[in-house]
């Protein structure tokens, strides 16, 4: 939900609640005010009737539909003003309606008159109607106000915030541009922007350093590892005992391992930095078949059976060199983590590339194996970067890579479209 909508919504709810409570009190107030005013008016009427009687008018002539005069025993005390609601017949409406009756008694010329005066009471329904009508009008006015002004104003107030938000969404490491924000007039937004500017600068700096580090480390480690390899190759050709041969071999193998790790890491770094030129449309079928041909021998030497189902002329947008690495890694993975007498199944359609293999059931969550240096087997030759490379390649080229395992079947699947 958009911030401005939430604000509008909350504001309207609050207004509505305010109007309801206010309406209730207004209703009570109006009701009591009307009764009070009317009581005073009736009191005056009664007093003026009493004056007329005093001035000698016969009281019978004064009686009408709204005035009642009765004679009560003289020995009673004079009654104070007494107001009460009553139902009385109302001629114009031709029915009994609620009326307010004010009565008071006077002792005039030795007679005790009780004078009662009626008046129509405003019905509560009418009051309710009036109050509700007023409130609805007020609410509608508020609504119009909010829509027209508040949203307009809020949008203007939030503009720097919206701007920062869109900048953050567009942030891209490869552009190497830290955020630059103008000063807005709002303190909080300036604090936020300030923080964002500092953070983006720091992020880009760290990113550059990591990038440089992985670029340099590949070269810096490769050279000494290369030297070591050469020395060991020379050592192999010296007169050596079997024990020495084992030592050399072990050193040699581990040195090879270092070189493989460095090579893989530098490939990963290059992929992450998008250092490969723009991808082109390549015939994946051709690359796959070429690689299967290479791998067939390895598969048969490893005592595995191969099943392939490759559709012709399947194209993908990817760098051809990367496509090759991708396929090599997938097939290599399927062969390496297989079991005795197992199988490898390679399937390519226009929709997906699927490479399945038999193998011991996974102990780890397949997703975890996509992380760097996560490996299922304890094979020392495996460096645990193969699937990370596949995963990174797919990420870089917008392909969806899924690795799953069901019992003894492991499936690597890449959706091509």
């Amino acid at each position: 939900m958009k911030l401005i909508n939430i604000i509008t919504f909350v504001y309207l709810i609050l207004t509505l609640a305010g109007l309801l409570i206010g309406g209730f009190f207004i209703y009570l107030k109006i009701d009591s005010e009307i009764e009070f005013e009317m009581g005073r008016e009736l009191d005056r009427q009664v007093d003026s009737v009493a004056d007329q009687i005093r001035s000698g008018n016969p009281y019978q002539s004064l009686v009408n539909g709204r005035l009642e005069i009765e004679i009560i025993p003289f020995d009673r005390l004079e009654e104070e003003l007494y107001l009460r609601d009553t139902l009385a017949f109302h001629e114009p409406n031709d029915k009994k309606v609620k009326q307010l009756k004010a009565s008071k008694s006077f002792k005039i010329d030795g007679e005790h008159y009780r004078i009662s005066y009626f008046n129509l009471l405003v019905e509560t329904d009418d009051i309710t109607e009036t109050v509700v009508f007023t409130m609805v009008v007020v609410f509608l006015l508020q609504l119009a106000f909010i829509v027209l002004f508040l949203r307009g104003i809020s949008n203007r107030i939030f503009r720097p915030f919206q701007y920062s938000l869109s900048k953050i969404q567009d942030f891209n490491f490869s552009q190497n541009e830290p955020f630059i924000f103008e000063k807005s007039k709002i303190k909080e937004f300036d604090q936020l922007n300030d923080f964002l500017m500092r953070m983006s600068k720091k992020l880009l700096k760290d990113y550059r350093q990591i990038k440089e580090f992985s670029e340099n480390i590949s070269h810096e480690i490769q050279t000494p590892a290369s030297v070591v390899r050469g020395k060991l190759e020379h050592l192999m050709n010296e007169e050596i005992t079997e024990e020495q041969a084992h030592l050399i071999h072990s050193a040699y193998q581990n040195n090879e391992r270092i070189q493989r790790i460095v090579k893989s890491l530098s490939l990963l770094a290059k992929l992450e930095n998008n250092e490969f030129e723009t991808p082109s449309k390549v015939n994946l079928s051709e690359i796959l078949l070429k690689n299967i041909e290479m791998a067939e021998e390895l598969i048969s030497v490893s005592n595995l059976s191969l099943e392939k189902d490759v559709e012709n002329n399947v194209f993908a947008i990817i760098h051809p060199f990367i496509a090759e690495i991708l396929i090599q890694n997938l097939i290599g993975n399927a062969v390496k983590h297989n079991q005795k007498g197992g199988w490898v199944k390679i399937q390519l359609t226009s929709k997906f590339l699927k490479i399945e293999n038999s193998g011991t059931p996974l102990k780890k969550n397949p997703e975890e194996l996509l992380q760097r240096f996560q490996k299922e087997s304890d094979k020392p030759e495996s460096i645990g970067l193969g699937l990370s490379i596949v995963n990174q390649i797919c990420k870089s080229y917008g392909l969806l890579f899924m690795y799953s395992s069901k019992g003894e079947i492991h499936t690597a699947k890449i959706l091509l479209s």
Partner: protein
Amino acid sequence: MKILLIEDNSELAENVVRYLDHEGILCETANSLFIAEDKLLSYSYDCVLLDLMLPDGDGLSLLELIKSRKSSPNVLIISAKGALDDKIKGLDQGADDYLPKPFHLSELLARLKAIYRRSKLDGSDEIQIKEISINLTTSEAFVNGNYLDLTKKEFDLLIFLMTNKNRVLGKEAIAQHLWGDYTDNLANFDFVYQHMKNLRKKICGAGGKDYLKTVYGLGYKFDENTI
């Protein structure tokens, strides 16, 4: 064969020099563009091993000078840059081959000899050790003149072994030579053993001596002095 190695890392250079020296190849070294230029102008070489990242510049800039020489030597680029770009650029500008660092010394020798054979010995392209001979033009191998029926991989393996005769070749180097980057994913080198076994069987079957020796767990070598 006389070679100029342009490489700034003295240890690496020493490795190469020593390996090639063993094969009777004379190898001079230059550790900067400046020295390399000087040597190229003063002497003639059969082949130049060119590193691209040098302290005083990019090795690619030397290519033009090398190619302008009258008896232009072959150029084998050796580079740790490894990017596909460099490879294509180098080959476009007249380099004969490209070997990414890190390389096996045996691989370097094999490439070097292949380039040398291609350019200097055009036509008569043969390798002969004792009773085994290989005709590289027709891709045929013979033992005592008898045709040896080899698969493509076995043929490549035999050339590799004979080029590096009397040297121990690590299983990794052999695998790298035959299967390229594919071996990165496979550290199980049983298939090298399989091929070696088949090749040995075929040579012995055709009346050749058992030249292919297993060196402990390390690797294999073509031992010329087998009795």
